[in-house]
Structures are given as structure tokens and as C-alpha cells.
């Protein structure tokens, strides 16, 4: 019996993948799509893993696909940069089991801080990109994705975003449905990429007798896909008003339809390749044609390249180069309508900057870097929050695993003994950081690496990593950070509790002066994803002189209050967890346990 359920796009994706008969699901956590794999883990027969990074996830899925099984890979757009080599090579290769790559863009920079548009990968690698508008479409498009992946022998990108991943809408599910896992083997001999870097094994022409069975006529498949997509049910053309025609992809379609219900629409469920015939049909039918697409003007350029005049970025300026559409923006720019609201002010409220939790071990690190004026390249997870202006202590934060390499380069280039330390979380260390550490030792670098080991990938919701001791859906091995550092050849490895500020400081300041690589493992479990047993809180006593040193550590529990014309710090007992950092910072001992 089918029943109605309200599910987020992330859950609908898991349902769609299950219903497609996948055997293997891999991925790396990243907002907003981290939950997809956690939902898939509920299905017993699917092998599921958090891989060490997006590239290993992609390659694991490729292996399963070559084995004839349908495989599913999940990551955020920045993760696709890491996996791009694997994905771009797989496009143009003969495919057995279908492969769908769910990639979530942060359209509108709602969950993170990047401007990347994964559709560009579709264009770069000639990979079809499907873009669902809500939960039901997410589930349906994934099933469709597997069909075309196998039919046209091609990997498929399913592009989500922060809204489609997190928005919940109604879908019909059959709780008793069981699905047989799909098996599709077309090729059982060497499948090498045959498009951009043609493998000819020294032969002069791929058509030679001994080579022809290896040849994958990618172009023929791609041209057929370009033709057929005009008839795909994911692309829908609705001819209504002759005045305004709108081409829209993903959830942008709903934003437009909300304000212009009577316009003519081409809803492109497949954003790449574009259904050229349908676009021309709509362009010929209407007086004015608009393109509404979240983020960069990607489809707009494709459509203009077909010689079809379409209005896009000239009326929807992308500043600096991306846009998150809303119904309000569309109503204002196309119809000239402004909202009538009960309250006329917007953006008057001070921003709530993302902060570490009160008691987070990372706060101890930020404080001691500040105190000793040590420069650093930082991590991208919770340990990177120290770069934000409320703390402002980390000098550069780039991508996952980059901090050690950046510190290495900075130090190699430095004169006058100037030096960076590198900060990395445990998740990031395994992700790609360890490669940089190998490089540092190999090339006789001098980086001190501080690994903030909290046993989890915290910022994305507490997923496992190789030293966490847990993974996803099956038993895993627990790897040792110190042993791998030792094996790489780091001579100076120290393990310290970051709450012990004095010892932690000693570790950092002593190794910092070395001219060889050192690793400090500051180890304490994440407060959110490990249980806290004791409940104590700090309070500021009347000995406080109002120096506000404690307010500068970036603790969310420390608030400011006015009294007698002076500003005082106050500890919010609902937030404080009693880590005692403020007590160690206060030089006159004015903070005590309550």
C-alpha cells in the first residue's frame, strides 16, 4: 500500500537510489547532502561507505559499476573537484552498471561559502546533468538517471542544491516494496577511456582489427542522447501565454511559476545536454524568452551559442558571479512588482556568525595561537572557524587537507625565519592532508602540523573517518594517526589534551622552533558527538574588572552586558559547559565554577 510522506530531497534521493536497484553507495560528507548516505544505510542489502575522500568514493563506485552493479556516489560540489579526475576519465569509457553522481551545489551560499556550479563539469566532460525541483522529482530523476546511464553508456550527474536537498515535500512511498538489485554487463574486457586521451596501444588507427573491440564510440552515443533528450519526460514544454516564455531548471521553475502561472514554460529537468528542438519551439512561440537558472549563467551561454536570443544575466545581474533566484527577485525584475510587507526593514539585525560550540577544544588552540602570535594555515572544518572575524586568528584557509601543503610552501619561501604552523582536523588529515605530510617529510620541510583530533567529521554532522572507529553500515578498522605519522617519518610526534592549555602551549611553542617536521595531536572528543558526563558551568564573580579578555576567545556562552556605564562579560549558564578556558584566560582569577 502506498502512503504519503513528507521527506527532504536528501531522503528522496536515498529512496530513488534504492528503487533503482543500486548495490553500492559511496561518498564523503559535505553540506547540504551529507544525510543522503545515512538514509541509504537503512537498506540492508546496499553496501555503503564513507570513503576517505571524494576521489576514493568515485573510484569505488566506478569499480562496482564495471562489475555490472548500479552504483551511487554522493558529494558536494567542492568534493567533485577532488573526484573530478576519476569522473572525467569515466566519461567516454564503456559502462556496465549505471552510475549516478549526486552533487549538491551551494546555490545562494546558504550552507557554506562557495560559488561553484557543478553543471560546468557536465559541459567539461560531456556528462548529462539532471536537475530535480523537489523531493518527488529527485527520486524519479535518479531512477531515470540509471536508465540513461546504461542506455547511453555514460555517468550521470544529479545536481541538487541547498534548497532541493533540505526542502521537504510530499512523496508517495510503498513501505513494503522490495527491489531486486540490477545487473548489467555489456563489456567484459578492458574498458579504457577513449575520448580525450585515445588509447591506441601504438596502433595508428582505432579502426584496426585488433583495436576495434576496445573502441567505444562515445560520439555516436552522445549525439543520440542530444537528439533523444527532446523527448525525455524530464523536459516538459507547456505552451500558454505568447507574451512571456521561460526556460527554467530545477527549483527555479517553481519560483517562476509561483509569480507567473500563465507564462509558457520549458522546464529542463536535464540541464545538459539541452533539448535544442524544444528551446527553438518555445523561442518561436513567444515574444520574450527568459532563462531562470540558479547560480552561474551556464544554460544561458549554451542557449545563446545556439543563436537564440534569451534574456538572463542582463536583467538578473550576478554579483559577483552567482545568483540564488527567489520568486521575489523574479517578480521584481520581470513584472516590476514589489512586496507589501508588515515590516519595511531587511538586513537590520546583526549577523549570527558561525561559531565553535562553547567548550570546543579548537577554542583553546585559537587562544594560544593568539597569545603567542603564531601564524597559521587553517583547516576547513570547525577548526577553520577561527579564521572568521570574531576570532580572526588563522591567516589562510583553503580547501580540505590543504593546510599542511600551504604551510610547507610558505615556510620554504620565507626569509627571516618566518613560519606558519598547519592546523588540520582528523577528518581532513585522512581526506588529503596526509598526502601533504608525506610531501613535507619527503622534501625536508619544517612544518609543525597540529592535528585537532576530535574523532569525527564534526561540522557536517559527526560522520566517521579512518581514526574514528566507526564508518557507515558495517564494521571498520580504526587507523592510528600517530602510527601513520611515524611511518611517514615524522620524528617529533606529541599527543596532548587541548584542555591542558599549559602543556598544549609548551608543545606548540617548542616544536615551532624546530627546523624539521613535527606533529602535535591535540586529542579530545567533539562535544556534540560524544556524551558529556559532568554538568558544571563557569560564572564571573564580582572580582571582574571588565577587561573583556574572556569575551575575545570566541566562546558563544560569554555575552556582554552594560552596567554603571561600563561593559562587563556575563556567562550564559544555558550555553556554558564548564570547559574552563575562560578561567585559564582570566589573569585575575575572576571566573570560577558556579
Amino acid at each position: 500500500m502506498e502512503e504519503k510522506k513528507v521527506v527532504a530531497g536528501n531522503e528522496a534521493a536515498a529512496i530513488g537510489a534504492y528503487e533503482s536497484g543500486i548495490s553500492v553507495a559511496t561518498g564523503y560528507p559535505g553540506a547540504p547532502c551529507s544525510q543522503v548516505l545515512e538514509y541509504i544505510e537503512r537498506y540492508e542489502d546496499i553496501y555503503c561507505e564513507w570513503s576517505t575522500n571524494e576521489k576514493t568514493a568515485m573510484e569505488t563506485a566506478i569499480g562496482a559499476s564495471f562489475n555490472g552493479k548500479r552504483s551511487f556516489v554522493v558529494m558536494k560540489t567542492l568534493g567533485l573537484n577532488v573526484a573530478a579526475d576519476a569522473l572525467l576519465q569515466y566519461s567516454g569509457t564503456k559502462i556496465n552498471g549505471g552510475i549516478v553522481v549526486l552533487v549538491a551545489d551551494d546555490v545562494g551560499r546558504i550552507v557554506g561559502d562557495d560559488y561553484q556550479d557543478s553543471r560546468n563539469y557536465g559541459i567539461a566532460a560531456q556528462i548529462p546533468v539532471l536537475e530535480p525541483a523537489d523531493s518527488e522529482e529527485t527520486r524519479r530523476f535518479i531512477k531515470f538517471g540509471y536508465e540513461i546511464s546504461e542506455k547511453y553508456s555514460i555517468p550521470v550527474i544529479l545536481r541538487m542544491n541547498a534548497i532541493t536537498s533540505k526542502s521537504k515535500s510530499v512523496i508517495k512511498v510503498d513501505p513494503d516494496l522490495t527491489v531486486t538489485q540490477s545487473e548489467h554487463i555489456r563489456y567484459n574486457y578492458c574498458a579504457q577511456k577513449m575520448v580525450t586521451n585515445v588509447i591506441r596501444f601504438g596502433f595508428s588507427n582505432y579502426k584496426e582489427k585488433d583495436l576495434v573491440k576496445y573502441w567505444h564510440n562515445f560520439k555516436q552515443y552522445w549525439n543520440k542522447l542530444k537528439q533523444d533528450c527532446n523527448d525525455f519526460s524530464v523536459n516538459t514544454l507547456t505552451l500558454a501565454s505568447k507574451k512571456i516564455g521561460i526556460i527554467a531548471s530545477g527549483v527555479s521553475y517553481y519560483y517562476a511559476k509561483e509569480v507567473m502561472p500563465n507564462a509558457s514554460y520549458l522546464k529542463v529537468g536535464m540541464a545538459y545536454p539541452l533539448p535544442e528542438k524544444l528551446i527553438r519551439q518555445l523561442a518561436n512561440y513567444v515574444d520574450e524568452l527568459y532563462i531562470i537558472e540558479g547560480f552561474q549563467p551556464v544554460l544561458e551561454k549554451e542557449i545563446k551559442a545556439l543563436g537564440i536570443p534569451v534574456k538572463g544575466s542582463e536583467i538578473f545581474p550576478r554579483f559577483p558571479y552567482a545568483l540564488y533566484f527567489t520568486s521575489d527577485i523574479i517578480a521584481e525584475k520581470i513584472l516590476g512588482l514589489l512586496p507589501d510587507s508588515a515590516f519595511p526593514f531587511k538586513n537590520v539585525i546583526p549577523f549570527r556568525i558561525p561559531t565553535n560550540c562553547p567548550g570546543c577544544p579548537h577554542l583553546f588552540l585559537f587562544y594560544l595561537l593568539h597569545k603567542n602570535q603564531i601564524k597559521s594555515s587553517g583547516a576547513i572544518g570547525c577548526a577553520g572557524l577561527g579564521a572568521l572575524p570574531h576570532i580572526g586568528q588563522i591567516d589562510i584557509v583553503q580547501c580540505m587537507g590543504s593546510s599542511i601543503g600551504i604551510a610547507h610552501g610558505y615556510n620554504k619561501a620565507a626569509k627571516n625565519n618566518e613560519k606558519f604552523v598547519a592546523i588540520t582536523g582528523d577528518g581532513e588529515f585522512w581526506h588529503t592532508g596526509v598526502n601533504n605530510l608525506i610531501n613535507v617529510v619527503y622534501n625536508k620541510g619544517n612544518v609543525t602540523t597540529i592535528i585537532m583530533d576530535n574523532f569525527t567529521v564534526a561540522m557536517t554532522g559527526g560522520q566517521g573517518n579512518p581514526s574514528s572507529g566507526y564508518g557507515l553500515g558495517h564494521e571498520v578498522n580504526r587507523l592510528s594517526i600517530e602510527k601513520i605519522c611515524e611511518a611517514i617519518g615524522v620524528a617529533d610526534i606529541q599527543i596532548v589534551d587541548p584542555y591542558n592549555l599549559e602543556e598544549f602551549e609548551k608543545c606548540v611553542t617548542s616544536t615551532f622552533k624546530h627546523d624539521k617536521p613535527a606533529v602535535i595531536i591535540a586529542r579530545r572528543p567533539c562535544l556534540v558527538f560524544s556524551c558529556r558526563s559532568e554538568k558544571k558551568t563557569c560564572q564571573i564573580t564580582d572580582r571582574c574588572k571588565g577587561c573583556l579578555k574572556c569575551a575575545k576567545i570566541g566562546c558563544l556562552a560569554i555575552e556582554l552586558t552594560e552596567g554603571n556605564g561600563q561593559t562587563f562579560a556575563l556567562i550564559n549558564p544555558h550555553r556554558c559547559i564548564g570547559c574552563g578556558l575562560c578561567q585559564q584566560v582570566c589573569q585575575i582569577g575572576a571566573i570560577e565554577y558556579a
Partner: protein
Amino acid sequence: MHKNDNGKNIILCGLGGQGVVLSSDILADYFLAQGYDLKVSDIMGLGQRGGSVVTHIRYGKKILSPLVREGTADLIIAFEKIEAIRWAHLLKPDGICCVNSYVETPTTVTSGLQTMIDVEQYFNILKQKSDVQIIDIDKFIQVHNLLRQVSNIIMLGYVSKVFNWVPEVFYEILAGRVKEEYLVMNKEAFNLGRELALKVCAKK
């Protein structure tokens, strides 16, 4: 679906850890049970604690956009006072704004990056065009000897009375959404919220 309710736009807002998402899930279950189409969008940035969290809930016969347009929200439920003002531009003229009077200073103010606004002044402006109902939930919790964790459920109970939503359906939903050992307290909180709304309405 109810004859006299074709649907509404609701904004639920507060801070990370205040139960905004759980509350929106409960409301979503309710409107689904009433036979409506609906879309719910949880919008939260990064950071584990203390960040702004807002949820857009739209229910009706057929819902297209998952986001509430400016000036079209029928109701704002705010678990923190400053957050109510952050999203107040979404409220339609004559809309209802139910606010927990609890205030938490934004981190940018604590660290001296931004200056605090005069919240009361903004509420005075909002009151001119809408029905603002401010509830001191912390005091209410003290009086009734409840846990702070059920603040959101008190607010939901309050709103359910204002809009005449069916309490029995909520009891069932709570049973499915809340851990068994907390179910009794959640139901109590929900009912106390309803009683409070009754008192406030009687005063008016």
C-alpha cells in the same frame, strides 16, 4: 482539508538547538494529516550552535515554490526575539507574530564586530501593521516546573489554539516524534501552551 482554510505560509525561526526543525516536522505531519499539499524548507548555515535557523512552511491545495515570499507569511513563530525581527519582512500586513521573549545577543555583537539594535523600537514598528504576541516562555517554564527543552512545544500548543488546530492529531504526532520518556512532558507542555493562548485571547 478544512473548508475555511485554503492554506497558509508559516515562518518558524530561532537559534540552532532550540528545536526549530523538530517543530517544523511536527507541523508538516499535521498538515499532511489534514490532507494538504505542503513544502517545508529548513534553512540553516554552517556552525553547530547559536546560528540563525529558519524554516519556511507552506501548505495548501497545491504548493509550488518551497519558499515564502516577502510580505506573504500569515504567521511567524519565533523562539527568540531578535530572530523574529530578522524575518519580519516576510510577514504580511495583519499577519500574526508569536514570539518567545527570550533574547540572545548575536556573536558579532559580543565580539564587538557589530552594534546591537534597539529591538523594542523595531517591535513597535511591527506592531503597527501586525498582531504581535510576545510570550515569556522562560518564566512560564519556571512557574509550571517544566524543562527548557519543551519551550518549542509550548509555542506550538499556543499557536494551535490561536488557529484552532486539532490537538488530538498533535498528540499522535508527538508520540511518533518524541522519545517515550519525554512524551508526557511534551503533551503537558502542548496543553499548557493552549491554555495560555486561551487566557491571552480572553484578555483581548
